[in-house]
């Protein structure tokens, strides 16, 4: 089976890899590019641990055929820090104890970023809806919701 050449933008940088037919974007990112921030949870679209932004839109990397991102921009958690500083969402997650085991955190942060990018001042209900595709088995969600709301509030103050 021949490999397919694939080029896309990965966190603002050009990436070029060769993928086997049927390779999903999560495998491409983790095993071929070495970006370990998106996690493999269920492989079924049920957990959200592999959430990434494709052209700014929230997608599940494990259900995305890698070659469909050719020429597009893929953003993962690895790309959201601002220089040496944590992204306000990352800071808020740390401050509000929104991560325990941390496995859902990259997906949660990307889902939260997708929300704040288009709705900088969301209501609590909108935050709940925005992370509804992401499963967390540790926190009970409340600290995560509070962290997203706090990040939105800190942005508004800044």
């Amino acid at each position: 089976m021949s490999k397919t050449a694939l080029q896309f933008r990965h966190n603002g940088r050009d990436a070029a890899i060769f993928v086997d037919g049927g390779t999903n974007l999560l495998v491409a990112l983790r095993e071929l590019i070495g970006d370990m921030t998106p996690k493999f949870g269920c492989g079924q679209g049920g957990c959200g641990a592999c959430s990434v932004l494709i052209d700014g839109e929230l997608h599940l990397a494990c259900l995305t055929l890698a070659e469909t991102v050719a020429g597009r921009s893929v953003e993962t958690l690895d790309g959201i820090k601002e220089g040496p500083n944590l992204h306000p969402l990352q800071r808020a997650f740390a401050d509000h104890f929104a991560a325990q085991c941390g496995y859902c955190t990259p997906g949660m942060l990307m889902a939260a970023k997708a929300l704040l990018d288009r709705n900088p001042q969301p209501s609590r209900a909108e935050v709940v809806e925005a992370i509804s595709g992401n499963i967390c088995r540790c926190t009970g969600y409340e600290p995560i919701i509070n962290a997203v709301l706090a990040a939105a509030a800190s942005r508004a103050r800044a």
Partner: protein
Amino acid sequence: MPVTVRTFTSTAEAASALSSDRGARYLGGGTLVMRALNEGDISISTIVRANDHALRRIDAAGPRVTIGAGVTFAKILAERDLGFLHAPARSIGGPAVRNMGTVGGNLFAPNPYGDFTVALLALDATIAVQGGFGAREVPIEEFLQSRDRQAGSLVISVTCQKPASSDAFRYRKVTRIRPKGGSVITIAAQVPVSSGRVLGARLALGSMAPAPVRARAAERALEGRQLDASTIAAAASAVTEGTSPVDDALGSAWYRREIAAVHLRRLLSGQE
């Protein structure tokens, strides 16, 4: 195991590629086919894609709406003219799944998924299908009865009439967790009222049979009558007739039968 990916610019070419290869599956949003590949489904040897713009078109200006098979639920939610479909679209997945999952793929989603199709069944939609030898239009009921034998053809679009009023089309999905979750049962009801009486009732149920089904006995109980408490009670008591729900992790067949009447009654009487 690697598979072959074939991408075409037209739906006709994609359909002919599908019809000439038993191991070929069409890739829409990926939420079904990529999931199958992740689970190691060896029946898939070829993935077929089409970049045809027609698949992503929405024509919703008039009384009859046509939605391309590749339109995602997020796109439906962004279209004001498709307001009557917002409740079913919003009931599917989380934001990422709604950015990916498509109207065409939902027609093939097994229980406890496929909620949008339940809505389309109540709306008496028509499915435009492209086969290896040309295109045809199929009523949704006929389509669903043979959906597992649709190999070799490709859904192009779905078409339905807009409901007469916002009250004439109602939708409810019962899940164990909110706001997201697989369907315990899904109900869509088209109940147009003309001079005080229900005319042309169509009720569709999800997760109550292998594919979405109509509740014909309950429809008969509504037809030609006022939508009052006694009519609704009669419809509710007939709603499980002809259904064959199964036990799964979300609910037992017994539980589904028990709650179907309750939720139909609440839906028709406008209770939350």
